[in-house]
């Protein structure tokens, strides 16, 4: 390897901040969090191994139910032997015997310490009682013999027939240790007991077992009865996901800091002026990023090995998968770093890939049970399933080879593209500045070169990603801030206890996700959450204003309102628009109600406002005001003019409406019809916005629509149940979900479709009427 390549790799580990990768504050904080989590994990790992139960309650005893005389005799005969074992081990609580304690840990030769407690019981399957006994007697195992065990054994040895003698065992599951101790007990002690029986009956050569041992774990109230399978499921889902995230994050933070970062601070010109071939620059940086990404990933792998005692041959396959994945992702990051000129644009450009790969992981998790084997042969999918399968020691060698080879080819190809792009002159920093100044002076209409087109596409992707992720980020940050106090508050509520209880019955990952979403729905409709979202929405509007103030440098601050579609100049016009909007919203929702009544969906309507709920009503009222305005800013006032500037009005309207619809898709009870309706509503709002030139009217309609729907008529608003309402509308038994919208609220139903389409038609008619009038006016004026 060239010295220069090595130097580049080395620069990644220059901890006094060398010419290579430097970490951003965000990356640094995430690293600290990661290290903290790691320490916690290691501490918990230590606790797992720590034989603490030796110090607290020594659970070694074995309860024997309906013990046959022969077993008691056998126990007495082994007493001396067991005592000797105890003596040789010494006291388990004495730290000076740590070697024996370790030996105890690994051999489970614990029956030396077992004391037998004899009990009588008629009911062989009464595990509730056995569990109680085991708790009281510090026992980990219960052995239940049939009443007439000795007679049955006699019969067995006299006629040689296997007469299905069954010995039941129950063991505790509140520590993984007990399972191993039980296995040891059965395979050693009970086996010896069988040999003892044969010896006393003078039987020597029987190949089959004399009695069958059925061992059942006692269901533990804490619900970890299938710990082993749960661990395997985690190994197939969570572990690969964590490895993906860790690699993606580490690669992104170090990979965008080189090349793109070096272009930003100017070092890259020096590097490209050195006699090092550009392929070496790409190789060096890719290798550096790979190693950086591998460090946390390998720690994760190591943790799975030690924590779950999965030390299997599969580990080598896992390592191969992880290395190849890290190489692939690093090469992608480097390619993006090569195309971009600064860290921020590189990271933004990588974000879609990051999210795409995470989405792939989520699909993998959802389908890991019944996925076609074909997927194991492709990169990314293959890596995900491969890591999971290898952890479970079910490595598919041909799939491994195919996956690694194809991913390797992909890596090399991406690396070659990166090196080739570095050859292009326009990707050096100093050229860029020359170029920009020269291009603008030259006359415009020339055909774009391939690279210029690629550059344009990248910048467009960055732009649209920004349009999508910015509102998402703002919304989730403030929702999260409002959810935290809500969660703390709700912890004292019965719903929370119910949630925890429900979690015990949850077995699959899908169920956990579903339950979590359900609970999140409860949080979202909590009055406290709604109350907190009132300042939350106002802060969101402020965030948008500050973004415009800072990024687009609009001065004075009040002028920023105009840039969000909220012009303040003409006050009377603003008030007029807003009031008109409120009336329109009321009319629209009222028509929905009328349609629902006419079509016979509604059973009855009563007054629903109870005492003490008026507070929630007012909170709701306050919340809908900024809520309507925030959504209008996000999808209309902010998004439409900015997208229109990049492309055209049609794209802006359709894209923003689509996003509006997509954003609501996470709500409960979402259906395809709801998506269509929300799209149509967004279309209507967008057209009103374009017509009026501001979002005052649409904000009012939006607010009034939600308020009327949720808190006056008493229906659900886009899947969110309103807490209190003036009227209470109850659907009849014959109500059809397709008309009423079911759980999502009326926006999921045909009634709203009808109203929205009517609104759209009226709007289009009005504008064409206006156009005709204008033409006439024009004609009369010219005449």
């Amino acid at each position, binding site marked *: 390897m*060239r*010295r*220069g390549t*090595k*130097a*580049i790799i*080395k*620069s990644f580990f*220059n901890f*006094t*901040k*060398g*010419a*290579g990768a*430097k970490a951003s504050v965000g990356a640094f904080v995430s690293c600290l969090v990661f290290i903290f989590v790691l320490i916690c994990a290691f501490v918990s790992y230590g606790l797992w191994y720590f034989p603490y139960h030796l110090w607290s309650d020594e659970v070694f005893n074995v309860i024997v139910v309906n013990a046959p005389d022969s077993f008691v005799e056998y126990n007495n005969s082994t007493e001396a032997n067991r005592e000797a074992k105890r003596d040789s081990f010494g006291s388990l609580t004495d730290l000076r015997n740590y070697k024996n304690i370790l030996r105890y840990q690994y051999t489970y030769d614990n029956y030396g310490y077992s004391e037998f407690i004899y009990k009588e019981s008629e009911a062989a399957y009464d595990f509730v009682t056995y569990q109680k006994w085991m708790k009281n007697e510090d026992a980990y195992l219960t052995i239940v013999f049939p009443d007439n065990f000795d007679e049955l054994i006699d019969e067995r040895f006299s006629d040689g027939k296997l007469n299905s003698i069954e010995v039941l065992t129950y063991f505790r599951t509140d520590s993984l240790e007990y399972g191993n101790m039980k296995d040891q007990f059965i395979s050693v002690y009970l086996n010896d007991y069988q040999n003892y029986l044969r010896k006393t009956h003078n039987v020597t050569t029987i190949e089959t077992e004399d009695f069958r041992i059925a061992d059942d774990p006692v269901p533990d109230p804490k619900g970890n009865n299938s710990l082993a399978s749960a661990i395997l499921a985690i190994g197939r889902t969570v572990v690969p996901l964590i490895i993906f995230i860790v690699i993606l994050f580490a690669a992104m933070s170090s990979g965008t800091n080189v090349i793109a970062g*070096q272009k930003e*601070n*100017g*070092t890259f*010109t*020096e*590097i*490209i*002026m*050195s*006699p*090092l*071939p550009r392929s070496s620059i790409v190789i060096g940086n890719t290798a550096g990023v790979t190693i950086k990404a591998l460090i946390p990933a390998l720690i994760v792998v190591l943790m799975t090995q030690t924590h779950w005692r999965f030390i299997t041959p599969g580990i080598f396959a896992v390592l191969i998968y992880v290395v190849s994945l890290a190489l692939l992702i690093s090469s992608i990051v480097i390619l993006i770093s090569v195309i971009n000129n600064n860290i921020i644009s590189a990271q933004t450009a990588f974000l879609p890939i990051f999210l795409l790969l995470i989405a792939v992981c989520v699909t993998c998790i959802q389908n890991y049970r019944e996925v076609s084997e074909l997927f194991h042969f492709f990169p990314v999918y293959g890596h995900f399933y491969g890591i999971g399968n290898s952890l479970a020691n079910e490595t598919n060698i041909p799939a491994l080879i195919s996956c690694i080879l194809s991913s390797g080819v992909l890596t090399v190809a991406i690396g070659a593209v990166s090196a080739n792009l570095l050859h292009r*002159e326009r990707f*050096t920093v*100093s*050229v860029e*500045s*020359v*170029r920009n*100044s*020269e*291009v603008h*002076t*030259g*006359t*415009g*209409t*020339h*055909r774009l070169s391939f690279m210029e087109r690629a550059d344009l596409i990248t910048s467009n992707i960055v732009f649209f990603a920004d349009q999508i992720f910015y509102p998402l980020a703002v919304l989730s940050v403030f929702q999260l801030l409002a959810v935290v106090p809500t969660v703390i508050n709700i912890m004292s509520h019965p719903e929370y206890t119910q949630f925890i209880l429900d979690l015990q019955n949850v077995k699959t990952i899908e169920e956990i996700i579903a339950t979590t979403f359900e609970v999140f729905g409860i949080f979202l409709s909590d009055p406290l959450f709604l109350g907190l979202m009132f300042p939350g929405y106002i802060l969101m509007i402020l965030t948008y204003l500050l973004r415009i103030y800072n990024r687009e440098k609009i001065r004075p601050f009040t002028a920023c309102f105009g840039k969000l579609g909220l012009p303040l100049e003409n006050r009377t016009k603003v008030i007029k628009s807003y009031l008109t909007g409120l009336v329109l919203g009321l009319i629209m929702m009222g028509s929905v109600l009328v349609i629902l009544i006419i079509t016979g969906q509604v059973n009855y309507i009563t007054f629903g406002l109870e005492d003490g709920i008026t507070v929630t009503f007012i909170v709701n009222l306050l919340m809908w005001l900024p809520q309507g305005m925030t959504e209008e800013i996000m999808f209309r006032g902010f998004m439409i003019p900015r997208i229109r500037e990049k492309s055209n009005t049609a794209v802006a309207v359709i894209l923003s409406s689509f996003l509006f619809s997509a954003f609501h898709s996470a709500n409960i009870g979402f259906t395809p019809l709801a998506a269509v309706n929300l799209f149509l509503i967004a279309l209507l709002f967008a057209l009103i916005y374009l017509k009026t030139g501001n979002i005052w009217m649409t904000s009012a309609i939006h607010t009034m629509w939600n308020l009327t729907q949720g808190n006056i008529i008493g229906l659900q608003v886009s899947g969110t149940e309103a807490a209190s309402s003036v009227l209470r509308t109850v659907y009849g038994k014959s109500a059809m979900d397709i008309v009423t919208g079911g759980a999502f609220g009326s926006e999921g139903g045909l009634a709203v479709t009808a109203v929205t389409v009517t609104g759209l038609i009226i709007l289009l008619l009005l504008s064409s009427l206006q156009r005709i009038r204008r033409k006439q006016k024009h004609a009369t004026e010219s005449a």
Partner: protein
Amino acid sequence: MKVISANDIHKSYTKDSETIKGVSFEVNEGEIYGLLGPNGAGKTTLMLMISTLLEPTSGSVTITDLDTRKDALEIHRRIGFLTTEIKLDPLSTPNKLYDFFAELYDIPRDEIRDRKALQFGTFGITPFADKKINELSTGMKQKVSIAISLIHDPKVIIFDEPTNGLDILTSKQVTDYLKHLRSKGHSIILSTHIFSVAQELCDKIGVLVDGKIVAEGTTDELTKITETDTFEEAFFKLYVENHKE
């Protein structure tokens, strides 16, 4: 002996306009060649083409008989490209940066230390060699940047606007160093829009107007050709005669 020679190079960024419209010149060993021109004349473009960072649309540049298009890497070993715009990794130190680039330039390991001591001494970098770049003043950064660009002791130095944005003291240091390099037989090509720099340093000056060299020679020759009294007047006359708007 000629070290750099440009043969009728053209460069166009867009289809309809040419930034460089056929430039030819030669730079000999131990000579400082100055490209003098107003902003936007194409100086930086020309410098980038000489230093292999840009490819000419037509024509060729050879440095010590190597073609910039074919032997870029070998040329990189022989040239040092300096610009006042070069910034350095703000979180690194001069020492670390020097070591890093020494590796990239494949300088023998046992030589790195001595060379660093010598170069840092010449520029007076030694006192702040372990400070972070972002704690240094512009002049200090410039010195570090120059020291790093000259790390491999190149025979040919390409210097874009050598004194741009420097204070009087540092700019004196830089010009003195360039003279010192010339006396050691290095060839230097620099671009500038400052008369005094051109007048004081350059053995030969090419006046660049709108992507063309309109006149070439020593300051005296240029005043003689244009029949003016001072070099400044000569330049203005050349500019007015050749600039088309």
